């Protein structure tokens, strides 16, 4: 089962490089996404056993994040069908600076997209810290060509920053791996998996363990987009095609979060939960504050979404750092992924219709593009934590956790930052939605491609349902995941 989960996207991705005709290649993307989703769904019946001597195993936490990745990939693969039909063959487009540019070959795009799924699956399945590192670094490398799909200067700049900042960050996480090995040196034949290390946590060397966590926090925190290491994120998310942005934000950041949480679990088992909790809460609130500062007055609506991702990664770190709110943080990861994918896919529709990312040039969306405009509004309400959508529930649960632990001041700060982001985004989004359609939206193509409308619409429906009612299995799953990841 585990081999199939890894093999399907990898084999399909390798094959996509060599299939010449467009039709079968696009079909392959969708078929592989469906197969991966079906395999993931099968894991909900019974968890498959470990393979490779325990290096790879799907546990409750891995299953939660793998499912998220799989669902988002399915939605984006369906959306990509519509996206590639319009973008795949337009030889020249005009960017904001007036330069003409081509798009990358579609075979490379689809191939890398599928390999991206494969590497994220590896990251979700790895129990061994070395292998986990290999998986996370591999996600960086296969996603770099995806960001550079639109062959223009700004996307190249974003790709370079992404590659360099993330590679250096993750190299430090490798050093963290070695520190972890040093911490475990008294126990010669210990396998470097989360479970083994947690079981022998008392024998680990504490100063080395703390140093290792700091390096992991820098390394995987860079990839996850925690401030102040988030600088690659707004560039990459805004310059990548919206299909890729949705995956980067909804799936990739979660993989890095999962990796960090696996290290956190070892430290919690070693009795250092207060140390890691304090750091996580601090960086979480800092990320929220930085994001809030940049969302206010943001002029590019995709960058606004990217900063919102920084904010929500901060919420996740804050929730986990609180300890008691760890299950809430897991639920929030689910809600954030679904909502952010909805928003990025809708942003892709806006971009395709108006050919601008500038907030100032977008007015009257509700009239010009009734369907996408409505989804944009829904997405905004959901992501800022308004009832009755999913993120409202999980953010409230995290707040409850903070108050339950008597962190009154931190809870107040958390609420204040959420409020600032709400106001900042409301100013931007409401202006975009209401009023007379602006110049670029006077004449827009009809919204008639179901592949570009239904994936975000279904995601919106899911977010709404999660706000009204959290299904029992999901609730159990997030609690189980939090326990696996060492919640107290």
């Amino acid at each position, binding site marked *: 089962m585990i081999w199939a989960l890894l093999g399907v996207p990898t084999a399909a991705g390798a094959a996509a490089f060599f299939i010449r005709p467009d039709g079968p290649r696009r079909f392959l993307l969708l078929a592989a996404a469906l197969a991966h989703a079906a395999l993931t769904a099968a894991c909900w019946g019974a968890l498959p056993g470990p393979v490779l001597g325990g290096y790879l195993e799907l546990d409750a936490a891995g299953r939660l994040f793998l499912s998220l990745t799989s669902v988002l990939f399915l939605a984006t693969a369906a959306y990509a069908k519509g996206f590639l039909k319009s973008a795949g063959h337009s030889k020249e487009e005009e960017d904001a600076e007036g330069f003409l540019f081509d798009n990358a070959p579609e075979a490379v795009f689809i191939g890398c997209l599928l390999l991206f799924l494969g590497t994220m699956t590896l990251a979700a399945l790895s129990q061994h810290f070395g292998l986990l590192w290999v998986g996370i670094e*591999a996600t960086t490398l296969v996603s770099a060509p995806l960001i550079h799909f639109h062959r223009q200067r700004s996307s190249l700049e974003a790709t370079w920053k992404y590659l360099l900042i993330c590679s250096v960050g993750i190299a430090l996480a490798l050093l963290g791996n070695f520190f972890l090995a040093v911490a475990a040196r008294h126990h010669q034949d210990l396998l470097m998996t989360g479970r083994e290390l947690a079981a022998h946590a008392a024998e680990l060397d504490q100063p080395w363990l703390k140093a290792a966590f700091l390096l992991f926090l820098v390394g995987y925190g860079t990839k996850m987009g925690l401030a102040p290491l988030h600088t690659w994120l707004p560039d990459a998310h805004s310059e990548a095609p919206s299909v890729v942005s949705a995956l980067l934000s909804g799936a990739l950041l979660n993989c890095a979060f999962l990796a960090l949480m696996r290290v956190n679990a070892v430290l919690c088992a070693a009795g250092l939960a207060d140390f890691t909790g304090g750091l996580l809460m601090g960086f979480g609130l800092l990320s929220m504050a930085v994001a809030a500062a940049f969302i206010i007055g943001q002029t590019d609506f995709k960058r606004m979404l990217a900063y919102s991702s920084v904010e929500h990664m901060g919420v996740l770190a804050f929730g986990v750092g609180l300890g008691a709110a760890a299950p809430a943080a897991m639920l929030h990861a689910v809600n954030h992924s679904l909502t952010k994918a909805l928003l990025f896919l809708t942003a892709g529709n806006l971009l395709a219709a108006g050919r601008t990312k500038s907030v100032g040039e977008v007015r009257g969306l509700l009239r010009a593009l009734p369907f996408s405009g409505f989804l944009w509004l829904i997405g905004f309400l959901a992501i800022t934590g308004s009832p009755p959508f999913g993120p409202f529930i999980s953010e409230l649960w995290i707040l409850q956790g903070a108050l339950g632990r008597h962190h009154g001041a931190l809870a107040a700060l958390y609420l204040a930052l959420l409020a600032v982001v709400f106001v900042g985004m409301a100013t931007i989004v409401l202006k975009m939605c209401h009023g007379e359609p602006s110049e670029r939206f006077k004449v827009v193509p009809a919204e008639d491609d179901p592949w570009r409308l239904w994936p975000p619409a279904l995601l919106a429906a899911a977010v709404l349902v999660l706000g009204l009612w959290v299904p029992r299995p999901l609730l159990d799953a997030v609690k189980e995941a939090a326990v696996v990841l060492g919640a107290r």
Partner: protein
Amino acid sequence: MSFWVEILVILVVLSNLRVLGASRLSACIQTVAFQGALLGLLPVLANLDALTVRLLLQAGSSTFLKAMVFPWLLGRALRQAGLQREVEPFVGFTASLAAGVLFLGAALWLGARLPQAGPEGLGRLVPTALFTIFVGLFVIVSRRQAVTQVLGYLILENGIYAFGMAFAEHQPLLVELGILLDVFMAVFVMGITLFHIHREFDHLDTDRLTALKH
């Protein structure tokens, strides 16, 4: 510590200083290749009396990648980019060397403070590894060209590799090869990106990549 390991450690330190002081890019690339070869040979020389197939495989693959493939990839990127053969630092060469000496001092100090944990004889590798890591990070931030940033990344990787050898000898082969493959892919993808940057901008100066802000 065996005589050969001692010599290697000294050579690694000297190669770091040479990267900081060299003004020609090709000299920097050669020095990093030399450093890669030294680190590839290190596990063999440190265990001369107990060679295993696993050890030879590991040493062979890392020497091949670090000393031959990476320099070749970077040299190719440099040739494609044409004329820019100078390093063009933000921080001058003398200042860089002075910083290097400071890093060396810091690495020795830190290395002495760390609890001895590795196998006997490789102890001096720890300050060397830390020094190499510092130099790598410094080169990334203090040099203007994209090629030099990749070089800095390679030096950083070398330092981490050296640290891993000093301490974590029980890394499984699978993981080790995975790490090597990842680094290889990183340099490969960076090389392709360099090619695109050059074609698009006609230069490789990263400080002029400033369109994206806020």
